């Protein structure tokens, strides 16, 4: 089933997703174009005092949500494109994929390559790849060395969710004001600040 939403509150989306994930046996593709107000979303293990500039968050009245999946912390808003895939083990068996994180991400990388790969009208030869191409790099979706999508997963015995927040656009001030630089970061980040590490999907 495909569910297309626009401006659905991310908190409500996560509640609905978890209900569909744990309470149904159906496969889902959920797309939501933006959430109504800037919101911080942390993963299962997120600790606000480690990850956030709490004073700024409180001062500006920013909502902070802890989601049911793993992964890092993001600031999302009306320019974020949310895409969630909810599936079952039987679906993955057809691809020979076991329900473990890296294997699921290997499958989602191939799925998104069909979405973000260079168009057929590009002068580049189909077999060549540029350093700016889409890839899954240390668990992030990137164009080249810049991240444009953060993803997270939740896995049970026979169900899985892979959800992504794509930065169609973003407000660098929100990142700067609310998010600390993470202590655990992928090696390709090279200690770059948010503005040098991220890119916008709308610029592609």
């Amino acid at each position, binding site marked *: 089933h495909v569910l297309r939403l626009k401006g659905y509150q991310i908190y409500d989306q996560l509640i609905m997703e978890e209900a569909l994930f744990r309470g149904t046996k159906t496969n889902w593709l959920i797309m939501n174009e933006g959430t109504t107000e800037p919101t911080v979303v942390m*993963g*299962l*293990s997120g600790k606000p005092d480690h990850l956030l500039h709490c004073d700024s968050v409180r001062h500006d009245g920013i909502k902070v949500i802890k989601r*049911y*999946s*793993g*992964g*890092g912390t993001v600031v999302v808003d009306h320019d974020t494109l949310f895409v969630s895939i909810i599936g079952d083990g039987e679906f993955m068996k057809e691809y020979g994929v*076991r329900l*473990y*994180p*890296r*294997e*699921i*991400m290997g499958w989602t990388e191939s799925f998104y390559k069909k979405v973000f790969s260079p168009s057929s009208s590009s002068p580049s030869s189909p077999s060549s790849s540029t350093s700016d191409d889409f890839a899954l790099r240390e*668990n992030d979706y990137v164009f080249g060395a810049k991240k444009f999508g953060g*993803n*997270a*997963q*939740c*896995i*049970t*015995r026979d169900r899985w969710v892979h959800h992504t927040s794509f930065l169609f656009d973003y407000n660098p001030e929100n990142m700067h004001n609310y998010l600390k630089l993470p202590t*655990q970061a992928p090696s390709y980040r090279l200690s770059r600040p948010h503005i040098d590490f991220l890119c916008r999907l709308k610029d592609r």
Partner: protein
Amino acid sequence: EMLSTITRRATSVCSRATLTFNLSRSYSVKSGATYFTKDHEWIKVEANNIGTVGITDYAQNSLGDVVYVDLPKKGFQVKQKSTLAAVESVKAASDIYAPVSGEVTEVNEALTTEPALINKSSQKDGWIAKLKISEQGTKDFDNLLDQAAYDKHCKDSKH
């Protein structure tokens, strides 16, 4: 009245004896032995109907580096195959299931500060919780695998 009292006491003693007897009698349940689930949890049976639970080396290797463990609370009642805990690795939260029915009596607090113990020593220092095995739990062992059966299960899973 005397007869009914004696009957109740005898039944009570027999029930306890049956519990112990089943736990130690069955060819597949031996105190000190370790049993496995098809979902790659292990349980090591100890004295006083206590089982120590964790995930296997196969599971920790498949999950990747564990960065967080969501431990259960003491007193938490579980049924076989219900969710006991969760681990986070490679941006994924993965459920860990109870191998048998029982009640959580102790959790491995070391995992709070050193979750990577699960990767380093999944079947020893990386234990997750201890369960007081219930009466149903003793029957649940019928659904578990011994080492040889588990090794075969892992081998078959890779193909």
